[in-house]
């Protein structure tokens, strides 16, 4: 597996444990980017010459590939965006005012990433709605029971990450979605951390909207997708105006292209879409049960090794998907991360864009190790050994 990622040839000694922030890219994705720029570079949905036409067809084929990846019913239900953040903001800005009226409630978990928290907080404030934040589990995961208990007839939107970005817990979206739908509400799912680790099915989970990022599923940065149910996307106004998204423009007024183009103003990230299609193909070629078993083994191995070190608190559970967050008592996460970096071990230390969660855990930050398809047991062992050494370095041995 590792040999498919040229990055590791450049960094043979690096232990890269920050895949939840961004994944490394397989050769197939790099090749797709190069092929676009060397062979297919033409703008889409504009030119009448053959090259422009065939590039447009390939761009739309990328949309079909993404639709299949998340099991959308129609390719038109996929809007290309810059990534999860833009996807979620698009829903908040365009669908939010249609769905949320004064006095309504928007429900989120305190374990959400800021990008699935702030847009809803701002929407609630703008609409005079209540922003309801469900408490997390003591280990820093979304608590489905706490969310379920807060769903009311006023809950117009539930925004939830399928897998949380700090602790890696899997949320049973379908059960919550059924409950929200029964009350007449809608469900927005942040799939940024689930799509790299498991097959997703937007229809089976009952998502009205589903967002994910290309760069976390081994694709390029600057490209992502929003899935929205066709009948909802149809009703929604565009939030950006310009080329490609119109039907007719006169001095007096404009009308819009059908979905999804009405949400893709301006020249899109064509190379990114090609790269994302290659990444999706790369992921679909994996045997998911093998991937899951491997990543679960790495998570359990790391959790066990860390738990054996005096003063280490490990968040999440053994069921976490590819993510292990922890703290070492008496050593600030930044100091620990610098110590690890000196041994060529790359982890994330900080609040992980989840300050409401950090506040509830009572810590300013955590250290997070996250796995990808290329992660190995050797990576895990080097990290655990270094954490034990850091304890001695900063706190002295006992």
């Amino acid at each position, binding site marked *: 597996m590792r040999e498919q990622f040229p990055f590791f040839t450049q960094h043979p000694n690096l232990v890269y444990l920050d895949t939840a922030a961004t994944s490394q890219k397989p050769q197939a994705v790099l090749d797709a980017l190069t092929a676009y720029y060397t062979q297919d570079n033409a703008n889409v949905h504009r030119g009448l010459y053959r090259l422009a036409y065939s590039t447009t067809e390939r761009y739309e084929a990328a949309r079909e590939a993404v639709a299949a990846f998340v099991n959308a019913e129609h390719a038109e239900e996929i809007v290309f965006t810059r990534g999860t953040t833009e996807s979620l903001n698009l829903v908040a800005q365009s669908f939010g005012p249609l769905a949320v009226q004064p006095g309504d409630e928007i429900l989120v978990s305190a374990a959400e990433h800021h990008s699935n928290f702030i847009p809803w907080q701002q929407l609630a404030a703008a609409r005079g709605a209540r922003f309801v934040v469900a408490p997390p589990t003591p280990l820093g995961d979304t608590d489905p029971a706490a969310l379920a208990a807060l769903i009311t007839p006023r809950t117009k939107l539930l925004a939830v990450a399928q897998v949380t970005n700090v602790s890696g817990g899997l949320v049973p979206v379908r059960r919550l979605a059924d409950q929200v739908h029964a009350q007449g509400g809608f469900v927005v799912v942040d799939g940024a951390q689930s799509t790299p680790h498991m097959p997703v099915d937007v229809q089976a989970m009952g998502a009205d909207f589903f967002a994910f990022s290309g760069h976390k599923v081994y694709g390029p940065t600057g490209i992502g997708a929003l899935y929205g149910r066709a009948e909802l996307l149809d009703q929604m106004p565009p939030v950006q105006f310009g080329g490609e998204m119109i039907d007719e423009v006169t001095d007096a007024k404009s009308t819009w292209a059908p979905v999804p183009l009405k949400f893709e103003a301006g020249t899109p990230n064509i190379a990114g879409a090609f790269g994302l299609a290659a990444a999706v193909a790369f992921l679909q070629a994996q045997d998911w049960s093998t991937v899951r078993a491997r990543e679960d083994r790495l998570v359990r191995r790391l959790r066990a090794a860390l738990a054996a070190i005096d003063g280490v608190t490990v968040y999440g559970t053994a069921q976490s998907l590819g993510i292990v967050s922890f703290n070492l008592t008496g050593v*600030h*996460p*930044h*100091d620990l991360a*610098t*110590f690890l970096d*000196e*041994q060529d071990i790359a982890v994330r*230390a*900080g*609040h992980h864009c989840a*300050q409401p969660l*950090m506040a509830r855990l009572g810590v*300013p*930050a955590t250290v997070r190790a996250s796995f990808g398809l290329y992660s190995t047991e050797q990576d895990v062992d080097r990290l655990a050994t270094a954490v034990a050494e850091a304890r001695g*370095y*900063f706190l002295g041995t006992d």
Partner: protein
Amino acid sequence: MGLTRLDQLYRQVILDEAYHPRHHGKLAKPTHEITVRNPSCGDVLTLQLQVSDGKVVDAAFAGSGCTISQASGSLMTDRIIGETPQSVLDLVGQFSELVIEGEVADEDALGDAAILKGVHQFPARVKCATLAWKAAAQALTKGAEHD
């Protein structure tokens, strides 16, 4: 292993300074107070100054942070007591230059705080080192005066 570089960053005096910081807490009669954040790590630092007769007569900092930011808060408060606001601003500039460039014209002027020089080898940690110093500059230039 690269621990030589690490040892320069985490010299024993710096660890001592961080784990037993001076001037940590609150002042009885602050004239200036400011809270600053390092958004990349979530660290929060509240700095209080008491300025009278054109001099910083006392200083204290509170909040949690990494070894570097805590040691820096301790060294900064200790260094600026007794200085005029203008010389504090000069010291802030010199300290920033030292931890970014690794050298500064008058290193001795910074006193003990110069032991944080090793931070310049760790660009990602420069903000940890400068947080308290930036707070002092902000408190003296635009921080709300109490009385």
